[in-house]
Structure formats: structure tokens, C-alpha cells
């Protein structure tokens, strides 16, 4: 797979004195689904937000769909795309947020048609037709005229997914999209994402849903303290983690909530075994 849609190289990000990302490298091929896991504060969300420049890296190079978002110049300074170029890239990169960020003064349908009309200059008729299709596809065809606050968290998040898809993105970024909804509603969001993955969407998914990662992701990146500590096929990283920190993390996650029903099971013994090493 040489067809990289996203290339991230030497990505650093500091907030003041705090270095959150310490040199992240990875590639995403077209159609690939990558789950990004790691403890809170590990930098995984910051890393995701760098991919559409919601955060500006302090060093490193990011390329999306053949376009360079930012790169380091020989003198060590950073060169960023200009505003119009960044908008052009964001048009093709959908993002779904932990807290939905739907526009509360607009109906579900209005949320979905706003950007296609404003950014892609779609006619209202076309935008509405497409929005109805998308809302239907996330199971909310009947909620098109509801306002966000009239919907459950799970429904709001599915509208947010439809809103991002309405731009026909080449890449979708998911930032802990089930963390702010009731556990029993997470499933309906994950189902939509799973179908999206099956349809061939390229996805970068920051998540705590290990069951989802195991079942849907092609690859898993484990991030800790601003570095990719372990990376590999989902089944391998989740079932037979090699790095002690990955092992410790998975053990902690699994002790709190057993691994999801369907899909992979993680051998409990394996994870526990790793914890001794992790303590060092």
C-alpha cells in the first residue's frame, strides 16, 4: 500500500512549556481505518486535531491527499498553508467531535446543508436532497426538522457524522465520539461508523472503545506521552501487545470494562503478564 492519503512525519506540538507531541510518524492509506488509543493526556486528540490544523504543530510535516499542510523549512521555521489552502484541505477532511458541536440554532437538516451550500456552493435543492439521504443513512430521516437539543446524544452525534459526510470528505477524523453519550447510545454511533468503514471510508478514530477498534480498525496506534509506542494490525496490538506500556494500558482498560461481545477477545493472562514490566 503505497497510496498514502495522510503522511505525518516528525510531528511535534507544544503548549507553552508543555510538549504534548514529541515526534509522531505515521501514514494512512486510502480506505484504511486506524484506531488511535492511549491514556488520557497522551496527546492522541491533539495529534488528530493537527491533521486538519485545528492545532498548529510546532514542528513536523503533514500531508493530506497530496497537499502539504505544514512543513519545516531548512532554517527550522514552520511553513503553513495559507488560509484558503487550509480551507481547501478541510473541505476534504471531515471531523466529528466528542461534544458534537452541532449548531444549536439550526435544525438537523440545516446543520447538514450549511457547509455544502456555503463552501461547495451547492444549490439548496441539491444540498437538501443529499442531506435527507445522509440523515436517512444514519437512521435519522424522521428527525430532519428537529433541533439538536431535542435529540439524544447518540442522535446528535449521528447528525454530526452526517454533517461531516455532506462535504464528501476523503478522510474522516473521529475524536472520542462516544465519550459524551450514555453508554447504551454509543452502539448506534459505532454502528454508523462501522458501516462507513465497510463502505471504504478512510478513518482516523481516537477512541476508548476497544471492541470497536478490534472489530473495525485495520491498524491500531498506541500513543503514550506524545509518542507512538506501538503500531500494528488491530488484532495483534490489542490481542498480543508487545510493548509493556501498551500491555499495562490495555489491562487497565479491560479491568474497568470487559472487552466487547463480538469481535476480538483479549487474552486476560497476556495483558496481566505485561503489567509487571510496565511498572519499571
Amino acid at each position, binding site marked *: 500500500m503505497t497510496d498514502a492519503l495522510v503522511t505525518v512525519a516528525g510531528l511535534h506540538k507544544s503548549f507553552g512549556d508543555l510538549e504534548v507531541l514529541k515526534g509522531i510518524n505515521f501514514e494512512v492509506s486510502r480506505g484504511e481505518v486506524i484506531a488511535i488509543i492511549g491514556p488520557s493526556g497522551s496527546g492522541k486528540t491533539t495529534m488528530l486535531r493537527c491533521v486538519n490544523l*485545528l492545532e498548529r504543530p510546532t514542528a513536523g510535516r503533514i500531508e493530506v491527499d497530496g497537499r502539504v499542510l505544514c512543513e519545516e523549512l531548512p532554517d527550522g521555521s514552520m511553513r503553513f498553508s495559507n488560509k484558503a489552502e487550509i*480551507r481547501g484541505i478541510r473541505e476534504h477532511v471531515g471531523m466529528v467531535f466528542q*461534544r458534537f*458541536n452541532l449548531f*444549536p*440554532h439550526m435544525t438537523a437538516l440545516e446543520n447538514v446543508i450549511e*457547509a455544502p451550500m*456555503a*463552501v461547495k456552493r451547492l444549490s439548496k435543492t441539491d444540498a437538501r436532497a443529499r442531506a435527507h439521504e445522509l440523515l436517512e443513512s444514519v437512521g435519522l430521516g424522521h428527525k430532519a426538522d428537529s433541533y439538536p437539543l*431535542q435529540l439524544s446524544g447518540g442522535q446528535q452525534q449521528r447528525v454530526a457524522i452526517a454533517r461531516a459526510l455532506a462535504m464528501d470528505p476523503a478522510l474522516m477524523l473521529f475524536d472520542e465520539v462516544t465519550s459524551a453519550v450514555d453508554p447504551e447510545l454509543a452502539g448506534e454511533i459505532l454502528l454508523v461508523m462501522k458501516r462507513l468503514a465497510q463502505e471504504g471510508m478512510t478513518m482516523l478514530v481516537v477512541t476508548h472503545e476497544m471492541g470497536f477498534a478490534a472489530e473495525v480498525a485495520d491498524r491500531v496506534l498506541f500513543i503514550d506521552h506524545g509518542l507512538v509506542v506501538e503500531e500494528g494490525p488491530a488484532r495483534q496490538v490489542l490481542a498480543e501487545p508487545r510493548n509493556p506500556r501498551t500491555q499495562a494500558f490495555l489491562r487497565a482498560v479491560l479491568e474497568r470494562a470487559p472487552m466487547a461481545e463480538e469481535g476480538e477477545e483479549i487474552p486476560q493472562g497476556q495483558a496481566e503478564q505485561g503489567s509487571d514490566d510496565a511498572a519499571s
Partner: protein
Amino acid sequence: MDWNVVVESFPLIWKGASITLSLFAWSLAIGTLLGLAVALMKLSPAKPLTWFATGFSWLFRGIPLLILLFYAFFALPEAGVLLSPFWAAVLGLSLWTAAYQAEVIRSGIIAVDHGQAEASDALGMTRGHSMRRIIIPQGIRIMIPPFTSNATTLLKQTSLATLVTVPEMTLLTQRIFSNNFKFIEPIFVLAVIYLAMTTVLVIGQQIAERTFRLKT
């Protein structure tokens, strides 16, 4: 009590009231638009704009309205700018109210959850578009009560235009005093009319709050 005086002077009071209202309407419209511009400058990443906006607020909130009116009426002609009393008053009132509206608008904008701007950015919208369609419409809900406060104050402060000879309601009512030596009745009517006008604003606030309430 001799209400005849009031009844006889009614056309005069009516005329004054209409001038009061147009002073108010012009100053509110110009002041709010100017206030919006100042608020956006204050929020802009461009330092010179921020400085300008900060200076504007500092200046026009820091000087008494009456002195601004005197400047517009007495000092501008010296500089070769000759405005009628009415427009001189509108100028002073607009600058004064703009400084306050700017703060109301700015605080409304920054009160909108930052996630809204991020979602707009992530969708590839321009800053202008997301301001116009996403941020400001939500900010308005927050701005309504302090905006109405400012508007109510402005309406009452138009009475200061009396001192730069604008024939608005307060000035014309004073004319009734001097013609008839009756004070109590005209001044009572004057208060009632101001109260009626500000009541309309308060009702407007309630309607606006209902209109912009988020649907739940």
C-alpha cells in the same frame, strides 16, 4: 391641576416625541453597527485593529455624553464640519452608544462555545461566514438583555439633546413651562411618555428572547 395646558400643547408634545424617537432610532442603528465593527476589531488578530477598538471604547465610554454632544455641536463647526443640531446630536449619541454596544456584542460573541467556531473551521467555512451564520446568531441570544439595557439608556439620554437645541420632546415640553408657567402637568406627561417608550423596549426584549430561545 390644569390638564388643559397639556391637551392644548398636545401637538407640540407629539412633534417632540417623534423627534425623540428618530434621534433614538438613528443613534441606535448607527451606534449598533459601529459597535459591531468595533467589537469585531477588538476580537481581530490584527493588533492595530485591536488597539484602535480599545482606544475607541476607552474614549467614548470615558467622556460624559453631554461633553460629546457639546463637541459635536460647538467644536466640529470650528473644524469646518457643520452639522444641524439634530445630526450633531445623532453623532454624539451614536459614538457614545457604540462604545457600550461594542462591549455587549463582544461579550455575546465570546460567550458562544468555542466548539462552534471549531466545527465551522473543520467544515471549511470562512471566518466571515461562520461569524455571520453560526456565531453571531447564537451570540444574539446572550446579547439581548444588555442590548436592551443600552437601548433604554440611550432613549432616555436623547433628552440631553435639549442642550444642543434639538427640538425633541424634553425641549418642547420646557417651552410649555415658559409659555404657561405650568410645571407639574407637562412634566408628568413627559415622564409617562418616556415610560411608555421604554416599556415598548422591554416588551421587545421579551419577544426577542422568545424568538431566539433555543428549541428544546
